[in-house]
Each structure stands twice: as C-alpha cells, then as structure tokens.
C-alpha cells in the first residue's frame, strides 16, 4: 500500500474539530476587531507602558523559572526518594489553583503581614505587594510549573546511558549535568520556557490580587484589557489583538531560531 493509506482518518476528524475549536474564538476576535480605530486605540502611551511592563515581567519571570525550575525538574526526574510523587503534586499545585486564590496565598506569605513578608518588612523595610517585583513573583508562581513539567518530561525522554558514559569517563555529576545533560535538554528547556513565558504574559488573577493594578508599575496588558472591557469593549479587543500578535511573533521567532539547532 502507498504511504497515504497510513493516515489514520479516525484521528484527523477530532484533530480538525479541535483546531477549529481553538481557532474560532481567535477568528471572532479578528472579525469583531475595530480595525478603523485600531491605531488610536492601541497607540496611547498607557498601552505602550502596559505592553512593555508585560514583556519585561514575563521575561524576568521566565528567567527565574529557568534558574529554579530546571534543577527542580532534574530532581524530580533523576532522584529516587520517598515522597517524590507528593513533591511533584505540590509543585504543580499552581496549575490547578485558581490564580486569584494563588494571589491570596502569595499575600498571606509575602504580604505586609505575611509569614515571610512581615519579617522582610521588619528587617529591611521592604514591602513586596504593589511593586513590579510582585508582578514577577506572581507570574513566576503561576508559570514555573509549566516549565518544570515540560522539562521533567524531556529529561525522562533522554537516554541516560550518555550520563553513565560520562560518569565512567570520570566526569563529576555537575560536569555531566552541564556538559552532557544540559545540551541535550536544550530544546526541552526552550519549549518549557516558551510555555512558561506565554503563561506569564497572559497572567491576570494572581497578578491583580498580589500586585494590584497601577499604571507603569503593576498594570500589565491582561489587567489593562480587563479594565478596558468595563467601559470600552472595543479597546479591550484591540489590546487583546496586540497581546496576541506580540506573543505569536515572539513564539514563532524563538521556535524558528531554536528548532534549527
């Protein structure tokens, strides 16, 4: 038989329905977009400020997630220890926690009267809520599990014999991790980082709860979109489009760059 007969049609139909399901709301956004007023709606300095803040905080959150998340993924994938399943469940909790509840939890921990925040305030006079740092914290909290899950999956897919080979050649554990595991893990980390960045960019609930909303410091694009929706739905659609275009451009750019490796 020819290669064509191998196409499992039973999979194609649900796949097509799934694609339509995901893309139709986007099509709705494009169809109903107020194209004529678009330049005036998105040209304002407030929007530019919100967009810049979103891009900066999402990138910072992703950077932190990589530094902390890759080691967590390695621990979860490579170390055998009691309570590993529990640890994994706890770490991925932000995935299922409603973001607003996540924001409250962050306040209870890092707020002025929080478990850690109270000490911070007393010792250094630092109060985290309502600062740009709080936005980054909220985004990292919500988005890092995406990176961990993704990287852990990639780690499990790697052939561990390379690690063993390196070890038998006298490489230390850290050397093996840096020069053998990490390079092979590259695409997995990039995929996880992209997912993490996208989630951070769209973060709303935890951010508005923990960091509040103030133009220039904590008002990111999703917050701006929500507030515009209250009295100017057209502006909200326009802003959503901007966020969409920027994320697609960045994601496509990253993929092109990294998949060539």
């Amino acid at each position, binding site marked *: 038989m020819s290669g064509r007969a191998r196409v499992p049609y039973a999979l194609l139909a649900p796949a097509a329905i799934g694609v339509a399901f995901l893309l139709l709301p986007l099509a709705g956004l494009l169809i109903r977009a107020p194209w004529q007023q678009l330049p005036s709606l998105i040209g304002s300095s407030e929007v530019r400020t919100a967009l810049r803040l979103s891009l900066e905080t999402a990138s910072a959150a992703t950077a932190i997630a990589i530094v902390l998340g890759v080691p967590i993924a390695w621990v979860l994938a490579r170390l055998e220890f009691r309570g590993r399943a529990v640890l994994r469940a706890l770490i991925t909790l932000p995935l299922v926690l409603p973001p607003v509840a996540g924001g409250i939890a962050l306040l209870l921990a890092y707020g002025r*009267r929080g478990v850690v925040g109270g000490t911070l305030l007393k010792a250094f006079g630092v109060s985290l809520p309502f600062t740009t740092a709080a936005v980054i914290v909220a985004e990292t909290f919500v988005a890092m599990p995406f990176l961990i899950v993704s990287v852990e999956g990639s780690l499990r897919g790697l052939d561990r014999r390379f690690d063993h080979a390196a070890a038998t050649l006298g490489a230390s554990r850290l050397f093996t991790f840096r020069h053998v595991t990490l390079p092979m893990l590259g695409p997995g980390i990039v995929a996880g980082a992209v997912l993490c960045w996208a989630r951070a960019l769209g973060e709303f609930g935890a951010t508005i709860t923990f960091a*509040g909303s*103030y133009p220039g410091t904590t008002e990111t694009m999703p917050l701006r979109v929500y507030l515009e929706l209250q009295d100017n739905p057209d502006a909200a659609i326009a802003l959503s489009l901007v966020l969409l275009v920027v994320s697609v451009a960045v994601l496509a750019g990253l993929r092109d760059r990294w998949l060539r490796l």
Partner: protein
Amino acid sequence: MNHHSSTIVIATTAIAVTLTACSSSKKAAAAAPSGTIVVFAASSLKATFTTLAANFETANSRVKVVTSFGGSDTLAAQITQGAPVDVFAAASTTTMGTVTKTGDAIGTPQVFAKNELEIAVAPGNPLHIAGLTDLTESGVKFAVCAPTVPCGAAETKAFAAARLTPHPVTFEQDVASVLTKLELGEVDAGMVYQTDVKSAGSKVTGVNFPEAASAINTYPIVVVKDAKNPVAADAFVAYVLSATGQAVLHAAGFQQP
C-alpha cells in the same frame, strides 16, 4: 330616612368590598407567579438579593429564583449577548443604559436603592483617618477601584469634589478586591461603599466623608426583554420595590431611592 340611607351605604360598601375582593383574588389567581426566574444582580447586591430571593420564594411557593452575581458590566454584556435572564439589577444607571440602549429591557428601569461611598480602614482606625485629605498624606497606602468600573467612577467624582489628586497604590477591579487588600493589611485604607463596610462587620471600620454626597450610586432594576417568565419577573421587581423588600435593603446599609 336617615337611617334608611345609611343602610344603603353599608350595603353598597359591602357589595363594593365583595366585588373588589373578588376581582383582586381573580387577578391574583390569573397572574399567580410560578416557575423559575433568573435574576442577574451586581456583586454588591449579593447578600441582599440572596435574602430577597429566599423571602420571595417563601412568599410565592411555586416560584424558584436563580440568582447570578457579577460585575454589572460583565452581566450587562452577557445580557446583550443573549444570556437567558428575567431580571437585571445593576449597580449604576450607566451600566443599565447599555442594556436599555440595545432594547434588551421591558419598560423603564426603576431605581430601588442608593449607596454612598465610605472610607474603610483597619478596625479601630489606628491611623486616625478622618477624611479624604488624610488619604493624600504621604505614608498612607490606600486602594481604590479602577476609574472604568462604577465604584471607581464614583471615587473619581468624590476626589474631584474635594479638589484632591489621589495617589492610591492600586486601582482594583471591584470593591471586594479593595476590601480583601485592606483586610489582609496590605493597605491602610480603601474606598468602598457603606454597604460593604456594614457587611464586613468588625473586620473594618468605616469613615464617612462629606464629598461622598456628590457621588451617590443608584441601583436600577428592570425586567429583561427575552424574559422566559415575565409574570414572576414583574412580581419579583415589585417585591424588591415593596416595603418588605426595601426593609431588607435598608438593613444592609442601602439608602431608599
């Protein structure tokens, strides 16, 4: 003769009373509300409308009231998009306007309550905040609603009336978020409604300020055009406007329309 005429008067009155009683009972029987109604109400009405719905169900045993609460604007948007709703109670006339403008309401919305702004502070008012001016002092962290939501619009008006430029630490999405920030101690004060202060009980202290009078919020209610159960919907609106309904609203801190 005198005696005779008074008998006639009594007889006529008796007949009239009987007739009225008869006709009213007939009307009630014909229009006795039954079935289910869906009521969309602003978040700030959650406590009162939950009570009103329960009381209305008790008074009309054949009616079931399903309530849904949210931001007035969100609810209005859902109604204009065809959500199956019978009654809509909004937290501002502007929001109600979006529903009447698109022809999604029956008749003219009726104002059933008013609400005034109040400064909410930590219990006992440790920073001795006495008015709007104190909020603008440095070192006082306070939260307001975003100007695009009804509470924020009212707050902007109040500060304008006081000729003050506020510098809040955050523009929240609704009064509930403002209260949360205050109750968790992240801000020293928050601008909310009198009803919010009342329902928060001992968790916050309210500070009234004169400029609130220039930014009073009105709550209109209306029967939605595509109401599946207009009879029960009308009855519910009448109940909210009745003395019994008003008593519930008043107890929660709302002002009479």
